[in-house]
């Protein structure tokens, strides 16, 4: 079972994290104090860590940099009430893998953690991504479904690559926007939906089993089982 360490001093937030991650089938250990959190984090017993930026005792930034210096490579999702862009940069520079601001939607937190876990999992160097009859060649940059070339535009290619690398995983619009375009604001409108819609028209042509699924109130998933 995947083990998660949640370092969070606010009890309500902590309970939210624990229950959401448990629902996703993780075993979660909660630590409220920075000093103790640091000790648990460097123990190396965990597959991933959710880390509050501001903690009593030892600060979140210190914990993540100590972890990295100690050679602990488990992905760290930083959660902070500090919304400033500089804070995000600082968190990621210290060794965090992703940065969320409070308040957050718990399912997005879980989704982000799953993406981090998947990225951290040792993978054979793939040049071709495969999901069912969908094939994406990272070298030739060709995408085929059932052997038929789909002719994706560069953005569509990046989008599909991201979906395929995280197939089965719910990806929120914010996560998609951050991953593909690299910006961290709320683009509003149905901007991401439009891009997904275009990709879907090419990937899920009439007569084929739909691969890109819209998860109501949340985002998208490729080849989701549920």
């Amino acid at each position, binding site marked *: 079972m995947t083990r998660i360490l949640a370092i969070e001093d606010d009890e309500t937030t902590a309970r*939210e994290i624990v229950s959401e991650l448990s629902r996703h089938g993780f075993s979660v250990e909660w630590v409220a104090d920075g000093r103790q959190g640091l000790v648990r984090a460097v123990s190396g017993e965990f597959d991933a860590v959710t880390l509050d930026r501001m903690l009593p005792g030892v600060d979140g930034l210190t914990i993540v940099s100590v972890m990295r210096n100690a050679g602990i490579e488990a992905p760290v999702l930083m959660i902070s009430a500090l*919304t*400033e*862009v*500089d804070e995000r*940069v600082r968190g990621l520079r210290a060794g965090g893998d992703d940065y969320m601001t*409070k*308040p*957050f*939607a*718990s*399912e997005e937190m879980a989704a982000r953690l799953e993406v981090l876990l998947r990225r951290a999992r040792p993978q054979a160097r793939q040049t071709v991504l495969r999901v069912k009859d969908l094939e994406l060649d990272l070298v030739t940059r060709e995408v085929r479904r059932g052997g038929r070339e789909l002719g994706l535009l560069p*953005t569509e290619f990046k989008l599909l690559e991201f979906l395929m690398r995280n197939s089965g995983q719910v990806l929120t619009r914010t996560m998609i926007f951050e991953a593909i*375009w690299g*910006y*961290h*604001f*709320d*683009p*509003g*409108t*149905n*901007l991401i939906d*439009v*891009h997904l*819609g*275009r990709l879907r028209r090419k990937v899920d042509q009439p007569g084929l089993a739909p691969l890109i699924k819209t998860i*109501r*109130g*949340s985002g998208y998933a490729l080849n989701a089982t549920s």
Partner: protein
Amino acid sequence: MRRPEIWRTTTFRLALVYGAVFAAGVVALLGLIYASAAVFLTHQMDEIVIGQARALQSVPAAALPEQMRQVETQDVRNVNFYGLFSRDGAWIAGNVRRLPADVPVNGVPRELRGPGFQPGARALAERLPSGDILFVGFDAKTLSGLRTIILASLIWSGALIIILGLSLGAALSLGPLRRIRAVQAASLPILDGDVSARLPTSNRRDEIDMLAGIANNMMDEVERLLWAVKSVGDNVAHDLRTPLTRLRALLYRVRQEAGEGDTHLVMLDQALGETDALLGRFKAIQRISEIDRRERRAGFADVRLQALVEEISDLYGPLAEDHGLTFSAETEAPCVIRADRELLFEALSNLVGNAVKFTPTGGAIRLKLVRLNEGPRLEIIDNGPGVPESERDAVLQRFYRGQNGREAPGSGLGLSIVAAVARLHDFRLALDDASPGLRVVLDCWPVAMSY
């Protein structure tokens, strides 16, 4: 604003009034001196006239003409006048040939008027025991001399007072005027909305400093109130986001657990949508304050505007197309500026997003990068309904929605975010008429440089 003029300053007016009062004082003083001197001199001359009349009376009547001749020859200054007249007024002796009509024969000196006499001359006429009339006059010409002197003094001192007063007034006004101009210059940014600017004060503690101090205190209060109003919004947004996020989480869970056939599904989706819209609005409010709070240039780096424009058209092209709009990006030449790339992208994204939102199907949106002498200019032009001139300032404020934008979705904060980004960069953001449509101009060079 009107430029202050030197003759309108209080100092100058004070100098003028002071000069006038001083001149009046000088006139009064000289007048008093003249009057007192005249009284004194008249008295003196009267005594001389009486004395001489007495001396001549004591001379025997027969010797009188001879005596008068003698005295006349001794009078080198030609100040004495004598006349001896018979009972019926015929001349007998003396240098006065005719008895002046206005001198009564009573031995009392009085003023002697008449041709050949200076003003202030005194004379008396007296009947001798013989019945003849003795006339004695004295005209020292002192009083008229004094009058000339005083008049000349008045003219010269008056001219001096006027010249000195005017130049002193002007000189004294220059200092305050210079400071008022400094205050005026310092107030320009405040008028432009920079509530953190203050008026300059010196350490003289004079009335200008007092006024500037009062104005500065008022500005402190205005700034404090503005921040209070702003932070109320921010705090409300901040405090409401947490419970809203929890509410959304609950709704989401209910939505997940509801079966596909559930009749409440549509309502649940609507509730989720509304909650998301609310959250989006609060996020935007916080975002504006966050941008406003950002330290200037903290995230600044070289930004290639052409690449930015390409990214935007890549991101928004499909959206515009889905709305039945044509989207085109024109970049004249590569431009590199110092800016916060993320924020600039966010601003452009909001502007293009707005254009897509408000342009009706069939319209066109153009994103242009133009290179001007001062620097690069970004233009977003649509042929939608545009924004009436009267509303152009207001739409940059928080929450404002144009009359024809009421039904469009969104937080109504997009342009405020753009304005905040422009403020941070000190770029000029302006809305123009594209007839028809709206042209949004973002001048990517510091406004401060244009002055």
